[in-house]
């Protein structure tokens, strides 16, 4: 690979790459604001000034160059730490702070602010500017974000994002010189579903997330890598939490799935996690029509006794699961029905996801609009590949219900809206509900077993494109809740009747050993960015 040298450090680059891109990938920081890998390069903030001592042909460049716009070339020698380069970085920093309010103590961005970080690392720490600064007011500019223009450093990321990525051009550049401002117009508030990205890419506290305004300091957050559960795209996310509450979901770069972006629907997907009203905390058993809380041991014993009483087999036992369930839970559910009752009847609601949003303006690349699908669950593809039963009008489920099953196990919130199915299930002799939240099924159930949310457990989902991605625990579950896979293995009578699984990771090992789509796959293969699976066996045949 071709190589250039930054302060004598050899750095490899790909043909056509700019210096900054290669340097950042290598892991060295050069301060920068306007550069964003997902946006057009404008080289306007001038913060990433470097000295080019040799262009690769023995000659240097007389002026400092911006690393973001300088194409890398073989043998090039640069310095980001020479006296001249540091002079450039310092002076840009000084100029940027001339009109910046330095209101870090009341700014939500503090702690994760590029300006703050770079000023600390590269600035001089003093200002000789003795005049009044520009002052604007702040206001909400969309349903999701607020704008505080005093803090703006005119990097134009917001304009380039709304012009080139979303196309609606909500953020425009207005006026010029020191009056240059990036703003929306009062008569046209932002309405698209990608506003949160504007808060992400704003390097300072100018555009901030309305949702957590003044709620938490950024440095308090603990961050856990996860996957967005709000639709079948499975955007890679970071769950940011503190004191067992999630405050924010932010996208995590994955070029194969969501690049740098995610939608606002996904960003609010953490709200149920903090919901303490419908959260199920303890096992419950219906006694004479009323729920009573019970200990796990007693509940499991009671279920076993009741099952023995009913003596249901094969078609008399069915299970319903939603497609928020992990592959591991689906696997365990199928095993429970097959090994426990000789039944194949595990049903899921099949939703054929379509692209939900369309650009309002012509775009060269409308990638971001493909992110939101109409399938609001993360693992429909997993259910399909796991050989669970799902069809468009739930015909096979309805047929199975006509056989009057005696035992129904419900995982999560499948078919909740369908009163016909609910009524048919209600006739069963035993309904076992497993899930984290109360819903219509938990109301109808005879036994309620509290499970984990996606932020409390290990597991995997398969997105719409057949990419296997993993989730992992961020929060502590209620004391009496249990991982769904443990509950399912316990229902099968473990440990007497087979293995007991502590969490999804152990189940994945068992699945890998069994072959099929998961043959040989472990957490390492999936990694941080997921693993693209081959087309499902059924698809391959076609």
């Amino acid at each position: 690979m071709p190589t250039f040298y930054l302060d004598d450090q050899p750095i490899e680059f790909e043909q056509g790459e700019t210096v900054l891109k290669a340097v950042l990938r290598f892991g060295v920081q050069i301060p920068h604001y306007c550069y964003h890998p997902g946006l057009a390069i404008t080289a306007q903030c001038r913060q990433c000034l470097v000295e080019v001592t040799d262009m690769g042909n023995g000659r240097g460049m007389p002026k400092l160059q911006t690393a973001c716009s300088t194409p890398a070339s073989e043998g090039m020698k640069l310095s980001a730490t020479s006296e001249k380069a540091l002079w450039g970085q310092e002076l840009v920093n000084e100029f940027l702070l001339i009109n910046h309010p330095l209101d870090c103590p009341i700014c939500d961005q503090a702690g994760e602010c590029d300006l703050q970080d770079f000023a600390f690392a590269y600035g001089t720490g003093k200002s000789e500017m003795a005049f009044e600064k520009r002052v604007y007011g702040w206001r909400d500019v969309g349903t999701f974000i607020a704008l505080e223009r005093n803090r703006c450093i005119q990097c134009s990321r917001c304009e380039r994002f709304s012009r080139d990525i979303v196309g609606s051009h909500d953020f425009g550049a207005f006026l010029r010189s020191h009056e240059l401002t990036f703003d929306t117009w009062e008569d046209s508030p932002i309405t698209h579903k990608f506003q949160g990205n504007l808060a992400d890419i704003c390097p300072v506290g100018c555009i901030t997330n309305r949702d957590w305004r003044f709620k938490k300091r950024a440095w308090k957050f603990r961050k856990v890598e996860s996957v967005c559960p709000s639709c079948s795209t499975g955007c890679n996310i970071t769950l940011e939490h503190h004191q067992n509450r999630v405050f924010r979901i932010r996208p995590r770069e994955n070029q194969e799935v969501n690049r740098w972006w995610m939608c606002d629907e996904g960003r609010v997907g953490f709200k149920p996690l903090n919901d303490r009203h419908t959260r199920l905390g303890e096992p419950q058993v219906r006694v004479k029509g009323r729920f009573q809380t019970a200990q796990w041991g007693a509940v499991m014993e009671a279920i076993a006794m009741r099952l023995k009483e009913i003596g249901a087999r094969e078609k008399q036992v069915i299970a319903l699961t939603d497609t928020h369930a992990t592959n591991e839970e689906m696997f365990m559910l199928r095993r429970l029905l097959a090994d426990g009752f000789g039944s194949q009847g595990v049903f899921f609601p099949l939703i054929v996801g379509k692209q939900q949003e369309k650009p309002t303006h012509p775009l060269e690349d409308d990638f971001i609009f493909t992110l939101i699908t109409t399938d609001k669950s993360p693992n429909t593809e997993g259910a399909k590949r796991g050989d669970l039963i799902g069809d468009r009008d739930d015909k096979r489920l309805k047929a199975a219900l006509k056989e009057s099953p005696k035992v129904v196990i419900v995982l999560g919130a499948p078919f909740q809206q369908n009163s016909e199915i609910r009524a048919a299930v209600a006739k069963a002799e035993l309904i076992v509900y497993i899930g984290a939240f109360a819903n219509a099924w938990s109301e109808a159930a005879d036994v309620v077993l509290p499970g984990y949310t996606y932020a409390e457990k290990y597991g995997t989902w398969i997105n719409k494109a057949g990419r296997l991605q993993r989730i992992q625990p961020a929060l502590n579950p209620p004391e009496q809740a249990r991982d769904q896979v443990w509950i399912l293995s316990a229902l099968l009578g473990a440990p007497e009747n087979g293995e007991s699984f502590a969490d999804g990771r152990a189940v994945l090992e068992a699945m890998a050993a069994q072959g099929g789509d998961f043959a040989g796959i472990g957490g390492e293969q999936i990694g941080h960015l997921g693993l693209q699976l081959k087309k499902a066996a059924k698809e391959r045949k076609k």
Partner: protein
Amino acid sequence: MAEEKLLLLKNIRQQGYGGDYASYKKTGGGAAFKKALTGMTPAEVIETVKESGLRGRGGAGFPCGVKWSFMPKDLPGPDQKPHYLVCNADEAEPGTLKDHVLMLGDPHMFIEGMMIGCYAMRSTHGYIYIRGESPHAIRRVQAAIDELYKAKLLGKNILGSGVQLDLTVHPGAGAYICGEETAMLDSLEGKRGLPRSKPPFPAQSGFNACPTTVNNVETLANIPFILTEGPKAFAAFGSENNTGTQAVSISGHVEKPGVYEMDMGHNLKSILEDFAGGVRGGKKLKALIPGGASAPVMRADEIDVPYDFDSLMKAGTMRGSAAIMVFDEDTDMVEVANRTIRFFNHESCGQCTPCREGTFWIKNMIRQFGDDAGDEALLSLVHRAAGNIIGTTICAFGDAVGGALQGFVQKFPEDFRNHFQS
């Protein structure tokens, strides 16, 4: 008074010259374009311009023929990008008015040069970007183009050669920065006029991302002469690396402000005294700015130098667009600095941090001197802040601001000291 060398203004200086196509033709106009079209290949035209040594008159003084040779040589086919020649007639540099004189007095001369340029660079459409504040110039040039369409010298199959050429006048809308060539291209595309980061250079990716060359009005006005009389005849004017004549604008405190044409390299002192009649009202010269607001100021004792690109650069300033602004002994240089920085602050496009924030800051500091509230620390701060804009921005505007302001502080510190807090 010294004699003018007339090459660009030769028609304009004639009593009763109409400036329409008929008058232009009578003086031999149009022959150069015909010669190029019927007797020269595009490469030969470019070679001839190169040989003449003609340097761009817009400010940077880049050799015109070399600039033309950067354009792709191939004929733009149906699947290739079209080539464009854009004429920079924005002329917004304070003190500059020579392009206006050319456009209003003899528009056909530079248009012919432009047509030759289009032929040489295989461009079928040229745009003339004229500042919107000059409706008279826009109308004049438009009328000239209309005449050429009528004479079938523009349009399809010109003179039976199969060559097609259209020219369009594009009005600006009031932004000095659009005189910078890449900002001009943005503006021509219908955008805010923001200078672009180079590379890519306009010859690879200019107007609508197609190969484009931008030339100043005066530069193009030289082309017909070079083609008809030959590059040697042109190079006979001026000095070795600074060939040809130049149209110089003189304004400020002089007896006879205006535009004068002379050899490149004519002595600056002589321009002031022999052409412009010396300082107004018999006063003494204090300073002059030799190349528009962007050029660092010169003290009275520094002006005995040849007036061309290289000599002025050696003198630590620049020829720029050849606009000499003269200040008499009563002038307060703080006021000059104040008007200069107000102009630059108003006209900065705002995209680069040093220029956007720097012009704002320095404007405030100079105003403080205006309020007699300066001190030594503030003076050195002006100097430092101005220096920090030099070489740190996308376009040369930043260098101009910094250089000009540092010039005032370095050359006339006593004027600033007169405004110190007592």
